[in-house]
């Protein structure tokens, strides 16, 4: 998928938010859209996702001490606008980012023993076949989809993996791929996230921060989060970045997010938001400072991200990507922001400045560790984009008879977006009722994602080397 031709625009200095200082004084609360479309119905496959009362709710929205000014229009910027900062950032990250840092730490990437190049890793892992997700699901010639494992249960909400690719947090199911063993996250409900330096991971609720040694020492079958992991103020929908050069950790958590738990039932479009992403939408930024003997959450600040949600911080903490909507609330694509987050003492100054805008449809994205790419999934089969989606999938349009099954059973595919060019490429070619979801990178460039299939109770965790084809 190629986005609209780029236009040079005045992207710089569109500061979406500042710190607690210098903001205006409207403290109005965003309207809450309580409707949710992703709750599995009773006839859907049983899901071990959080129960209703555990589902993220609006009252967990991070509080802000930042005065908010209503903005009466969507953020400025034009589709396809990619500022020069993006290329500069990617160039810097090629030698300084977490992919390079982890290489310099000789990180042992899962499945790479004996491999000379990252793309040679996981050679022992079987390729997808008709026995699982289908033999022809790769949309890129020469790319491989390898089945890391098949989970006997379904998961809820997103899936994330450790930087070394050894551990997969599929909802509350954490899998040690090296031992082919499940580790029960006792007390976890949802939202696994891993630090890009492979030092630890977090789960909700209570923003539990756990050292990676809880998984790598011995052969644990369970990790009691309450005793093995420290509680923190990290809010829901958390994403983690680690400052380069051993300074501080930053985490974002968004009160404005989409409840994306699709694929348990037919899901034809991007899932709806937990609340309106309006003029006062905000993203919470938490500083976990390196105190010398550990990391301590010293404070949070709210970034105003009007008409945006699903904010994801980059591994280096220097970029922030969001999804944005128009004034009517329709998804429009992604905004890439340069994140300026500093502190003087414990006072945090933060701002997000738009540097690129990609008008493509997709769910919450995930950065590559070199920060050149993001990967995301995209639901198709219905809604206003059905015709464009059908064509992108190779049909003549939404009325193509061969597309009919997609319009009832839905589909989700994986995409990779090159942030420097705006070129997006589809990785998978899933069938009707097949949902490739929650893609994310590991440090060396492999992409992991899960596949849910309507009518089955299992999920496959897939590894893709498609990212190497785009370099």
């Amino acid at each position, binding site marked *: 998928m190629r986005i609209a031709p780029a236009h040079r625009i005045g992207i710089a200095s569109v500061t979406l938010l500042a710190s607690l200082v210098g903001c205006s004084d409207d403290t109005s609360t965003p309207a809450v859209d309580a409707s949710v479309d992703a709750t599995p119905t009773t006839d859907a496959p049983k899901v071990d996702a959080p129960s209703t009362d555990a589902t993220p709710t609006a009252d967990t929205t991070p509080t802000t001490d930042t005065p908010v000014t209503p903005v009466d229009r969507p953020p400025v910027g034009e589709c396809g606008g990619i500022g020069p900062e993006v290329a500069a950032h990617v160039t810097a990250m090629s030698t300084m980012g977490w992919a390079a840092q982890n290489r310099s730490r000789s990180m042992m990437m899962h499945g790479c023993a004996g491999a000379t190049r990252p793309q040679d890793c996981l050679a022992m892992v079987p390729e997808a076949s008709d026995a699982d997700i289908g033999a022809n699901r790769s949309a890129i010639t020469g790319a491989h989809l390898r089945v890391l494992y098949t989970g006997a249960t379904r998961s809820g909400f997103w899936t994330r993996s450790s930087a070394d690719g050894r551990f997969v947090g599929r909802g509350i199911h954490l899998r040690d791929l090296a031992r082919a063993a499940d580790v029960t996250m006792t007390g976890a409900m949802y939202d696994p996230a891993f630090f890009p330096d492979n030092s630890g991971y977090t789960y909700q609720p209570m923003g539990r921060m756990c050292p990676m*040694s809880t998984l790598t020492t011995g052969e644990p079958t369970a990790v009691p989060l309450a005793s093995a992991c420290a509680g923190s103020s990290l809010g829901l929908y958390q994403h983690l970045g680690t400052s380069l050069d051993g300074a501080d950790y930053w985490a974002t958590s968004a009160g404005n997010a989409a409840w994306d738990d699709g694929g348990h039932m037919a899901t034809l479009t991007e899932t709806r938001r937990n609340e309106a992403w309006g003029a006062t939408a905000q993203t919470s930024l938490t500083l976990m400072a390196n105190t*010398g*003997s550990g990391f301590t959450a010293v404070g949070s600040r709210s970034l105003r991200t009007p008409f945006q949600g699903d904010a994801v911080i980059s591994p280096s903490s220097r970029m922030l990507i969001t999804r944005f909507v128009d004034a009517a609330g329709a998804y429009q694509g992604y905004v890439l922001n340069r994140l300026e987050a500093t502190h003087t003492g414990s006072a945090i100054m933060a701002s997000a400045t738009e540097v690129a805008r990609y008008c493509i449809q997709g769910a919450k994205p995930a950065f590559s560790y070199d920060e050149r790419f993001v990967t995301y999934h995209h639901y198709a089969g219905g809604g206003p984009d059905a015709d464009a989606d059908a064509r992108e999938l190779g049909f003549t349009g939404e009325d193509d008879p061969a597309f009919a099954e997609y319009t009832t059973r839905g589909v989700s595919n994986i995409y990779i977006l090159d942030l420097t060019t705006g070129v997006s490429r589809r990785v998978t070619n899933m069938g009707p009722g097949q949902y490739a979801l929650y893609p994310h990178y590991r440090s060396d460039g492999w992409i992991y994602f899960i596949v849910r299939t309507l009518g089955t109770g299992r999920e496959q965790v897939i590894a893709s080397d498609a990212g190497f084809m785009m370099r």
Partner: protein
Amino acid sequence: MIAPRVRSAFILTALASACGEAPAPPDGAACEGIESQVAPASAEGRWLLGLASRYPADTALPARADELRRSQRARRAAAWEAVARTLAPVPLAHPSGLSGATVPRFQTWYNRDDIARTFQRLYEGLGPTGRAARARFTDSALDEAFGWNVGFATTLPEWPAARLDAYAASLNSAASVAGVAGVLRVAASPDAVRHLVQSYPEVLRCIASGAPPTFVDGPAASQQLAREPVSLAHCGARTLGPFFVATGGTLTARLADAAEGTELRVLDGVTTEAGTRCTASAATGCTVAGPGSFLVKLTARGQGARGMLDVQYTPPTAAVAGCLQRVFPVAAATVALEWRRTDLDMPLPTYDTSAAGLSRRLAPGADATWGTGDGTAEPDARAAYTMRLPAGSSFRLAAMHIRTREVANWLNITLWWSPTPDDDFGADRPASVRALGGPWSSYKMCVATEYTELDPDPAGGFTRDAPTLAAALRAVYEGHGGPSWCSNPYIDAGPGLVRSNCVGCHQHAMSGVRPLDVQTDPVRYPANARLQVRNNSPSDGFWGLDGGDHVASVFAETVQYWLSAP
């Protein structure tokens, strides 16, 4: 006086009258010094530091071990010299932006990332057959791997020579040079790390099969005799031990010439709940058969007792460090560092370690916790060792543990920053440390080498020339044979840890017992966990294997990684 054949001194002794049960520490205590590093030296940092500088151990110290047990003055003098050897300046391996730049020796020592890279290199080099057999590494392989680790950055495409040179040139201040090693939390000398990686088969075996139990039996060694003068007041009591006895061996205890009414008991076990195995008049004595760990308790039922206690026992010949190839070599040394951020509005707390300050914290009813401090300070780089990371974050060294394997239970040294550095625990700072210059004269020091204090002088021999130190030592003295003392206000921050001695906690390293358990279970770990309760220390007291840096998991991860190799 201990007879010549005595192998181990009387270890656990406590006068009930002088050493009442300390208040149970509240939950949340932590063993000292085992948290993880948070920003270790990078590959480029290692390139600049070069090979870690060996710890120049005093090879005469092992022969002086008994002197150090019995003289606080000799012990402290030896410890200060070990401090000087640990802090001695070492030049960088490459020119930097600061002419003649040096770092203190400990900053060249290896951290978890160094160990990981080196072990991965070594283990891969074994090849499939060697890996399957868990073969030992050859000396030449070890030399090659440590050298390769130093040059690892030069193998990375993102670190061409020009970038490395620019990196070195950017370090143009003492603080930035000090930051080369990162926010190092735990580091080990080259001899220590070499021993650790060479012990990987034993470490893996302990991970898979569990650590040795508290008491490890074995063939009986030759009989040992321990003699200890005892003086009990009316209704006084004293407990001595533990004594470890092998299967087939015996323990015989007797207080010669004891007054009538003096009772001797042999307790079966080392906890406060140990049951009585034998009760007799002290003059008659008791004999019990092994195997087991025993305490000997004397109680003066009558008007008091005085005499020489003889304990003959037959210990097992058991591996002292079952999770290592053998105990660490004499040049092994480790540090645990307590850095504090300087740019987060976090002033450095200060602590009163004078006799008055210690007495207040150790008074009956006090919680024996260092707490948040008695004041605050903002020492500059001249007064506290300070480093700055490339990202700009700045840290000062608040405290550090230094452990050297120059004696059996290590020299357990700890340093802490003080605004009154020449008082109490800094009053005997020798010229060798003062000559280091800079901030190093701002740190006070205490040291322990045994579970118990065997110096009969509460003032440690400092009454005349260092009265503030003498007074402080008196404040923490719990009697001849009572638990020894050494506690760091910044590191031993857990509840109750003003009563600490390092030695007691470190015996549990790699045993499966967690530091939190050690500090919060006064039954199994009496006297604030300061006393010996094991006849073996699985990792020879090195917490870095299973606590803090989790080096054991580095070995396990690497082995697991290669299991997937085609």
